């Protein structure tokens, strides 16, 4: 190996040959910190910790440049889990186990699959839009969001495959826009608002349903779909819980604002407005679920009983998320939507 002295000679010789090498000195002296800055000065798309140049235009113009607006702890670990648990809808689902089903059951499966094929990509487009507005200094947030986009694409794909794999077809589209009071997931321009609505409420409800997939699956393929999707969805919900937990700890002045997002989310969860909660009352998908859970179109009474229990489970898990994030005071102080309390404790 070269000694320090003859290395210096090499460098000098290289400079004499016309090489610049000033960047080598800059690298040796780089003292860019490893702690994430509270405010990001990075508007040039540079990698966090790299050495800025003074002459680069500020073309990044990122909307989100403040850590406390988007941050959460433990995201690196969560991202690694995203990467590790990727799966293939083509080869990891035992499609060969699907057998012909009665028409009413197949129609209900296809209706539910149509719903998921439609709404799952909401959770793809919207986080995707946010990624490019966040400073690369907060790359941990960007990474989990882009991993979520990947997951949601696979969900769109796997449910479309289910609808077209067993003698059925796609069915009626879902109206996800009508009757939404307040802000919608699509229209959110602020990350905490988006995350409260998308991760905590919307995906939380879907997660409960995926976890109970055994109840509505009629073969191993469907069980595998719900099981895999539940794993994915739990990570998406985790993004929201970790973010709200951070906000509660580090940004308590925004608690009231966050509660207002939860107010809106609960209203939609209980009323079914916007069609995002497939198990909500009197929505198209809850009928399909009742058919699947009951075992046929003539057994929807039994299905509705199970569906009611599913709503209770959704509420319990939602309350658990609130507790984990530090927003469970609303459960006891009278702020939580009364309809949810009624579902939670029907007696």
């Amino acid at each position, binding site marked *: 190996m070269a000694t320090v002295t003859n290395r210096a000679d090499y460098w000098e010789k290289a400079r004499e040959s016309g090489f610049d090498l000033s*960047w080598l000195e800059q690298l040796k002296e780089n003292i860019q910190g490893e702690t994430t800055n509270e405010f990001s000065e990075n508007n040039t798309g*540079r990698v966090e910790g790299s050495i800025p140049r003074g002459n680069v235009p500020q073309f990044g113009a990122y909307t989100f440049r403040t850590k406390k607006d988007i941050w959460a702890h433990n995201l690196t670990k969560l991202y690694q889990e995203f990467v590790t648990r990727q799966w*293939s809808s083509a080869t990891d689902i035992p499609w060969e186990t699907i057998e012909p089903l009665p028409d009413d059951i197949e129609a209900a499966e296809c209706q539910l699959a149509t719903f998921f094929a439609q709404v799952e990509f909401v959770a793809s487009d919207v986080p995707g839009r946010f990624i*490019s507005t966040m400073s690369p200094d907060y790359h941990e947030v960007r*990474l989990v969001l882009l991993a979520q986009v990947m997951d949601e694409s696979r969900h769109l794909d796997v449910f*479309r495959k289910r609808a077209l794999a067993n003698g059925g077809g796609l*069915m*009626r589209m879902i109206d996800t*826009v009508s009757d939404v009071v307040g802000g919608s997931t699509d229209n959110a321009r602020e990350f905490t608002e988006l995350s409260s609505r998308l991760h905590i409420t919307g995906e939380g409800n879907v997660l409960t349903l995926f976890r109970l997939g055994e109840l509505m699956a009629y073969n191993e393929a469907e069980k595998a779909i719900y*099981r895999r999707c539940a794993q994915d969805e739990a990570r998406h919900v985790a993004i929201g819980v970790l973010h709200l937990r951070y906000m509660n700890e580090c940004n308590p002045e925004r608690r009231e604002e966050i509660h207002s997002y939860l107010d809106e989310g609960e209203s939609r969860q209980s009323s079914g407005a916007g069609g995002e909660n497939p198990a909500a009352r009197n929505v198209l998908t809850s009928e399909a679920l009742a058919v699947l859970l009951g075992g046929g179109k003539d057994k929807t009474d039994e299905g509705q009983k199970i569906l009611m229990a599913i709503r209770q489970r959704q509420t319990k898990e939602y309350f658990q998320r609130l507790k984990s994030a530090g927003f469970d005071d609303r459960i006891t102080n009278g702020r939580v939507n009364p309809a949810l309390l009624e579902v939670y404790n029907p007696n």
Partner: protein
Amino acid sequence: MSTPETPEENPSAGQEPESTETESQDSSPERLTWMHDTLEWGVKARPGKHGLTMRDINVGIYGDVPEESRDMSRKPRGAFPVPGVPRTDLYTLNHKVELWADNAVDLYEEAIQRRWMAHIDIPWETLGGSIGDTLEPLPEEVELATRQFCTELAQQASIETDVIGQWLHHMNYAYHEVKTFLATELFDSGRHYSAFRQRALANGGRLGLESPGHINRRLLESRAGWTETALYLYVLRGTLTLLLYRYGEAYSHNPAEKQLFRRCMQDKARHMAYGMAHLKYAIDEKGPDYALGLRRLMGGVERDLAAEMKDPVLWEALAIYIAGSVDHMAEGMAEVKNLQRRYMEEYLTRMKWIGVDKTADNLDQGLAVYLGQRESSPA
């Protein structure tokens, strides 16, 4: 399922629900009428030797890709429409010609089949230099050069993330094959960013200088259309990125770097396959006037690229990486010049293949000089 830092570690999946209290049946007068709401029934897509792929389910009406979609909801292609559904968004890419490539559907599945994990599939322990490691660490200047090289590649990946992120949600749902493929590219770009950053920071290292930014700026500020952006992202930037990966692999100093570049090369080749197919399709469909417009568009961009290529940082770092020392840097630079020449040659070849009349004669003079560079090369 293990998401230890979440409150979701008690899923109880498959349990019977706790409550069995009854609820009155839905009272909607249209109860169960949806059971007949389908445009095509009886579809039974069969898995092939690669499982049940997205191409396998493109059967009947579900495989009909419209030339234009004015649907502003997220209606899945082929789903039963509901009258009077309000718009969800104002999608701006509503024509097949603006984003389509026939191979996107297969590339989506390939991306998933060829997924890899930087923290597991790269033998990081072969980098050397860690405590108790018997492997020799790289000479300081080679290590610094590698960090600079990887900083540049991490930034290229991060910009790719931004570019796709800002276009994906503008794409109409009728073209879900493209949207899902681009989601895989987004995921790949995150992995590349993370892996190259990890390499740069290995053994307690620090990152290098940021990119000069001329082409990054072009990529992020491109607003004329996805096709125009794709021209920048794939033909202009992607051609260089792929070459850098190739040279990175050819001159790697240890199995970790070799594996890293090899994996990234596979991914980037897939991205290029979509980009090239889309550009060719768009130009074939839109005709020579559009192709001429793209050629003229590249005039200013090429001047920016020529300015960026004069910046010595990446090239000198690569020269040291290739040569394995500053002492032999001149030999490394000879190989860098070959890379630069190949970059311009491949740029012209790709432009010609997609249907743009870009030749050495109308290439920016600042770039044309690289075409004359020819050095004896072991690569």
